[in-house]
């Protein structure tokens, strides 16, 4: 087998080299500042430039402020404003809800009515509740009534490398399949799911309509292998930028030998269906 040096550009084609850029919807980005470190692209214009450079046509943006702030009302207002001021429509704001806070219902209403958000994002492991808790059921009912997409971030970082004083164990999804059977209209996407979720639990969640994204999907040919197991509309593109290098997710489209239909589903079709269903 002959070897040859291979151009860097062969491993990661520049957008300029791509003849006809297709839609690419990143369902997992965050704005503002990660609480424990500066991320290289935690300035919104810089993040927008990175996403644009890689052909992202829409990015669903939550806020890192959601993790530790109690005043999510202003966090969501800042997020909406930041998305409006940068990216010319690239950034779709996804508000944060903490259902353990008093009057979280007003935050939900403002997300939907004031900011015209299409979805909201939860961080149960930072907010201290479980998906089997009644308060989550009440939240899910309310979000579903409003037709909002619900993103649940199972983790934000590897729990082995967390700050010792701020450990947040991964969210357990075991209660979710049974709960979702009670809310057939709910639209739920798990973010950063594959750091802790593998095998049968993934299939069980997919069977009740849960969507996923690929930011934490590991193993060689991970996307291609998972697409063989899941219903075709369950997996979306997601980068977890700027916490992760965006290129990690983008290269996964290259690592698997995807059919054109799989690529279209993964890069944009599934996200569009999820948002608009």
């Amino acid at each position: 087998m002959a070897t040859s040096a291979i151009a860097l550009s062969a491993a990661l084609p520049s957008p300029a080299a791509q003849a006809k850029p297709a839609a690419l919807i990143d369902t997992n980005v965050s704005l503002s500042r990660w609480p424990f470190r500066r991320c290289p692209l935690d300035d919104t214009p810089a993040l927008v430039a990175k996403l644009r450079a890689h052909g992202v046509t829409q990015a669903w943006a939550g806020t890192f402020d959601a993790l530790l702030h109690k005043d999510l009302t202003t966090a969501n207002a800042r997020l909406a404003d930041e998305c409006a001021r940068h990216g010319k429509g690239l950034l779709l704001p996804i508000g944060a809800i903490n259902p353990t806070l008093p009057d979280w219902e007003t935050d939900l209403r403002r997300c939907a009515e004031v900011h015209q958000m299409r979805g909201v994002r939860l961080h149960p492991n930072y907010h201290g509740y479980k998906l089997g808790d009644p308060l989550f059921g009440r939240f899910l009912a309310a979000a579903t009534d409003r037709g909002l997409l619900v993103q649940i971030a199972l983790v934000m970082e590897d729990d082995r490398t967390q700050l010792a004083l701020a450990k947040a164990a991964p969210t357990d999804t075991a209660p979710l399949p049974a709960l979702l059977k009670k809310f057939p209209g709910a639209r739920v996407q798990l973010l950063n799911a594959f750091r802790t979720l593998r095998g049968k639990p993934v299939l069980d969640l997919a069977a009740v309509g849960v969507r996923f994204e690929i930011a934490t999907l590991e193993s060689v040919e991970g996307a291609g292998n998972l697409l063989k197991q899941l219903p075709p509309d369950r997996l979306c593109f997601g980068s977890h930028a700027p916490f992760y290098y965006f290129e990690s997710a983008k290269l996964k489209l290259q690592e698997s030998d995807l059919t054109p239909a799989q690529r279209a589903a993964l890069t944009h079709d599934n996200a569009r269906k999820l948002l608009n269903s």
Partner: protein
Amino acid sequence: MAMIWDLHCHLSGVDGKTPEKRMAQLITIAGRMGIERLCVYMGMPWARDPSPEDLRRENDQVLQAIGKFPDRTFGFVYLNPKHVEASLAELERCVANGPMVGVKLWVAHRCSGPELDPIIQRAAELKAVIFQHTWFNVTGNLPGESTPLELVALARRHPNTPIICGHTGGDWELGLRAIRGQRNLYADLAGSEPVAGYTEMAVRELGAGRVLYGSDAGGRSFSSQLGKVFGANIPESAKKLILGENLKRLMTPILKAKGIKV
């Protein structure tokens, strides 16, 4: 043009009933990513605390795997400092008298102990590339799992021998601080989340010449680990060093000694 050599691959996490089939599959996937060479170590299944018999079995599997692809792969011999004599024998069998070019030390035994010394000394005589797994795990290290600080203690006793700090301790903000002053230690980027800023800090604190790309495939994707280099805000010249030139430089002495042309 960037030459990509992957420092850190295994036969796990990839389809195939035999080592050869798994190696072929890894090479196919790596080829899509522009990766020219793969370093592979440990068998299927692997043992965390391998007996002498385990070592021979796992190393035989790697010999099988690399035997069919000598121009795409390099083998590292898996050793256990709890079994020094057996480890030295494996070093002779697989490196001195075999095709392997490096040493892999994992989580059987903390690396600061004196048991490591004869292994490091013999590996250095053979010019073998030495790789020691490390982690700073806030949830707790395994009993025999080394930290970068323990590797620094070992490296101080062998200041003229390059040693690779596997995973850079996982918690790279700590790992890079731990090893930055020990000039014979190199940072392996493999096998952790593709957290932005990692590679920039590595280059800032160690210099690009001490940073090495690796994936930890097949458990990890090539993508997430290559993303750490492609996505980093560092000069293209630094990326080239990290993606392959540094590893080639570290391997050149043993490749020359073995008459292996690359």
